[in-house]
C-alpha cells in the first residue's frame, strides 16, 4: 500500500493545479454566478465602455443592462450579433439602445422586449432584425436564463391553450456548478487557455476595465460591441471565404425547409402588439456572405428567398419599413465588407441603412 500511496502523491501536483486553477481562474465565472456580468453592467451604466470582457454570459449582461435603464430609448434594436455593431451614431439626435443578442431566436426577441414592456417602458421605434431561423419549429432560446420565460411569453402571446403550455426546463444545477466543474479536465483546459491568452495580451485573466479594446470584447453603453480589432484585421480574405464555403451548405442558425406555422403566428402577434403600442417598426434583413449565398441558391437553403418574400409581404401588409436583404447582391455588399463569414463591418451596415432607407 505504501508504494501505491507514494505514487498517488506524484499525481498530486497535477490534481492540485487543476483544482487550484479551476477555482481561481474560474473561466465561466461559476463561483459567483452573474457577479462578473453585474460588474460589467455597473460600469456601462456609468457611461463607460468596458473592454477585456472574456467568457461572459451575454444574455446576463444584456438583461442587467436593460434593467439598469429607467427610461426606454427612442430607438431599440432587437436582433443578433449581425447587428451588434450598430451604435448610437447611426441615429443622431435620438437615444438608441442595441439589445441584440448573438444567435437570438424569435423567443429571445420576445423576452428581451418584455424586459422593457413589463416595466411600462415603450420605445418610439423598434428595429427588428429578422433571420430565417426565426421561423424554425421548436427552436429553444440561446440563453438558459431566457428559456423558461420564452415559452411562457410565446404561450401568452398566442393565447394558445393546449399544445404549447410551457414545460419546465430541466437543468442539472450540479453539473453546471463550480463544485462539479472543478474536477473536469475540460474546465482545466479553459482555465489554462484563459491564463495563456491573458499572458499574451498582458492583461489579468478576468479583469475587465474601462477603455479601448485589448483582449476579448468591448461593450459600449449603448449596447453595441466591438470585436477585437486584431481578429478582424488579420483574418485576410481566404478565411472568411473558407467559412463561407462551409456555411453555404450549412448556414449558421440554419434555414428551415418550411416556415413553421406557430412561429409565424408568434411573429405576427408580436408585430401586431408592437404596432398596437404605437411603436414604429422597421425590419432589418442582414445580408449573407456572397459566396455562401451563391451556394445556398443551389441547396435546400434556397428556401431563404421564400422566407424573405414572406417577411416583405408581412411588412407591406402592416406598412412596416424594410431595410436590407438576405441577398448581398441587392445591397452591393461584397466579400470585402465581411470581416468574418457572417458579419459585415459597421461601415457596411451604415451604408445599407443610408442607401436603403
Amino acid at each position, binding site marked *: 500500500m505504501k508504494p501505491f500511496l507514494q505514487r498517488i502523491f506524484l499525481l498530486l501536483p497535477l490534481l492540485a493545479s487543476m483544482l487550484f486553477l479551476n477555482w481561481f481562474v474560474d473561466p465561466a465565472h461559476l463561483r459567483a454566478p452573474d457577479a462578473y456580468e453585474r460588474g460589467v453592467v455597473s460600469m456601462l451604466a456609468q457611461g463607460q465602455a468596458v473592454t477585456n470582457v472574456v467568457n461572459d454570459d451575454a444574455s446576463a449582461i444584456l438583461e442587467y443592462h436593460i434593467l439598469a435603464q429607467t427610461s426606454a430609448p427612442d430607438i431599440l434594436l432587437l436582433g443578433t450579433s449581425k447587428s451588434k455593431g450598430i451604435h448610437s451614431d447611426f441615429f443622431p439626435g435620438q437615444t438608441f439602445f442595441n439589445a441584440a443578442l448573438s444567435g437570438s431566436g424569435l423567443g429571445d426577441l420576445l423576452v428581451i422586449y418584455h424586459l422593457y414592456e413589463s416595466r411600462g417602458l415603450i420605445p418610439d421605434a423598434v428595429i427588428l432584425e429578422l433571420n430565417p431561423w426565426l421561423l424554425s419549429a421548436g427552436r429553444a432560446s440561446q440563453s438558459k436564463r431566457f428559456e423558461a420565460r420564452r415559452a411562457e411569453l410565446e404561450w401568452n402571446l398566442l393565447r394558445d391553450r393546449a399544445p404549447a403550455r410551457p414545460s419546465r426546463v430541466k437543468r442539472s444545477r450540479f453539473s453546471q456548478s463550480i463544485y462539479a466543474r472543478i474536477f473536469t*479536465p475540460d474546465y*482545466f*483546459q479553459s482555465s489554462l*487557455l484563459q491564463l495563456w*491568452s491573458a499572458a499574451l495580451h498582458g492583461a489579468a485573466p478576468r479583469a475587465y476595465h474601462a477603455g479601448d479594446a485589448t483582449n476579448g470584447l468591448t461593450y459600449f453603453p449603448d449596447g453595441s460591441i466591438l470585436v477585437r480589432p*486584431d481578429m478582424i484585421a488579420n483574418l485576410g480574405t*481566404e*478565411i472568411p471565404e473558407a467559412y463561407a*464555403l462551409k456555411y*453555404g451548405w450549412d448556414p449558421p442558425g440554419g434555414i428551415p425547409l418550411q416556415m413553421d406555422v406557430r412561429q409565424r403566428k408568434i411573429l405576427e402577434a408580436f408585430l401586431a402588439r408592437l404596432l398596437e403600442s404605437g411603436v414604429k417598426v422597421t425590419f432589418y434583413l442582414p445580408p449573407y456572405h456572397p459566396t455562401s449565398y451563391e451556394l445556398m441558391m443551389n441547396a435546400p437553403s434556397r428556401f431563404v428567398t421564400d422566407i424573405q418574400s414572406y417577411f416583405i409581404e408581412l411588412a407591406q401588409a402592416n406598412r412596416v419599413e424594410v431595410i436590407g436583404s438576405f441577398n448581398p447582391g441587392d445591397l452591393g455588399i461584397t466579400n470585402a465588407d465581411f470581416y468574418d463569414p457572417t458579419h459585415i463591418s459597421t461601415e457596411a451596415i451604415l451604408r445599407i441603412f443610408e442607401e436603403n432607407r
Partner: protein
Amino acid sequence: MLFNSLPFYIFFPLVTLGYFLLPHRFRWLWLLAASAYFYMAFIPAYILILFATILVDYISGLAIEKAEGKRRRGFLILSLAANLGMLGFFKYFNFFNANAAALAHWLDWNYPIPFLNILLPIGLSFHTFQSMAYTIEVYRGNQKAERHIGILALYVLFYPQLVAGPIERPAHMLPQFHEEHKFEYNNFADGLRLMAWGFFKKLVIADRLAQLVDSVFTFPSSYAGPLLTLAALAFSYQIYCDFSGYSDIAIGAARVMGFRLMTNFDRPYSARTISEFWQRWHISLSAWFRDYVFFPLRRALLRGKMRLPGWLNQALPTLITMLLSGLWHGANWTFVIWGGLHGLYLIVELWTTRLRERLARALHLDSVPQLRAALQTFSVFLLVSFALIFFRAPSLAAALDYIQRIGLGWDASHVALWFAQLRVTLGQNHPIATVYPTISGAAILALTGLQILLLETVQFLQKEAPLERVLAGQTTLVRWSAYYFLAVNIILFGSFLPSSFIYFQF
C-alpha cells in the same frame, strides 16, 4: 454514459472503489447493478431487451448441456433466433423493408408494410454477438453452461465492454467473474495508463480529425481534391483512434478491477497485407466471424455434396464473411460495399501472392526489404482508406460522388484557400485557435500531424513489448515525465465537446 463525460468521471472511481470495498460474494451484484445503470443512461427501457435475451440464453445454455441430438440443436436455434431476432428487428427491419418497398415500387406493386419508428439499442450488435458466442460454445461442448444467472448477466452486461466491445468469449470472461480479484497496484497502474492512452487517442486525435472529416464528408462539393483526399486519409486515423481509444479505455477500466479483456487492436496500419490488417483490426470481431462464420462455411463447402472448384472454395467463404461483417456494422449498402471491398482485397491478395513475389523480385525490391515493407504498408493503408470512404459516406451515391470529386480541383493556385479551409475545419474549436485566433491552417495541420507522429512512435515502441513493459524499465523520473507529458497534452489539445464514439451506433 460516455467514457468522455463528467458522469463517467464520477461513476468510474465510485464503482471501482465499491468493488474493492465489498466482499467477493457481493461483487457480481455490485458490478451488475453498475453495468445496468451505465446502460440505462442511454435508453432505460432497453435494459429489458437485454434481460430478456440473457434469460433465453441462460435457459438455452442449461438445456443444450443436458439435451442430446436434435433437441440440443433445437435449443441452440432458439437462442440464436432470440438474439438474431432482436438484432434483426431493431437494426435491420427498416433496411430490408426499405429495399423491399423500393423493389415493389419498381415492379409497380402495392407495398403496405410501414416503417418502424424505433431507436437502435446502443451496442446491440456487440452484446448480441457476445451472447451468441456463449450458447454456441456450450453447444460445441467447449464451455460449461453457467449456473449463476447473475454471472451470465454480468458476462453480457459488464460495463466496460458492453456497448462497443471487445466482443469477449465465455471461456475467457466467465471464470474471471467467479475469481476473487484483490487490489493490485500493477493492475491499477496498467489500467489507468491504458485509459489515459485511450483518452489521448479519442480526445486529441479522433475528435480533432472529426472536425475536418465531418465537414468535408457532409459537403464534399465545397472542397477540392486535395482536401477530399486528406479527409479520407484523416478518417482512417479518426476511426482507428476513436475505436481503439474506446477499447483501450474499456480494457483499462476492467484492468483496474483486475479483469483482463482481450486485445482488440494491434497497430493495424503497420500491416503489410490485407489479411494481416484483419488480424490486427477489431480483433475480437474478426475472430468471431472467423470462428462462427468463415470456418463453418468453408467446412460446409468442402464437405458438402455440391462440388465447387478449389478457387471458389477459398473465395466464397471469404467474400460472404466480409459481406456479413459489413452488414454487421450497419444497415446500409455502404457498409455492405465496404465489407465486400475487403472481401475482394483478400481474394485478390490470395490469388496474386506468387505474382506479387515475382514482381518484387523483378523490381529488386527483395534486396531492400525495408523499402518493400514500407511500400506494402502504405498500399494497405491506401486500400483501407479507400474502402472507408464507403463506410463514412451517408449513402452509396454520396460515396461515389466523393470518389469522383477526389480527382477534381488540384490547381495549386488555390493552395491558400485549401489551408484556410483546413483552418476553419480542422482548427474549429481548437484550443490553440482560441489563444491565437489568426493561427494558420498549415500550423493546425502540423500540430495534428505531430500528435499522429506521437501515436505512431509510441505504437512503434510497443512493437516488441506492451507500453507498460516499456515504461517499467525506465526510471521513475522518465516514467512520470511521460505521464505528465501525456496528461498535459490531453488537457491542452483535447477536444472536450460532447461526442459519442463512432462504434456506439453499431
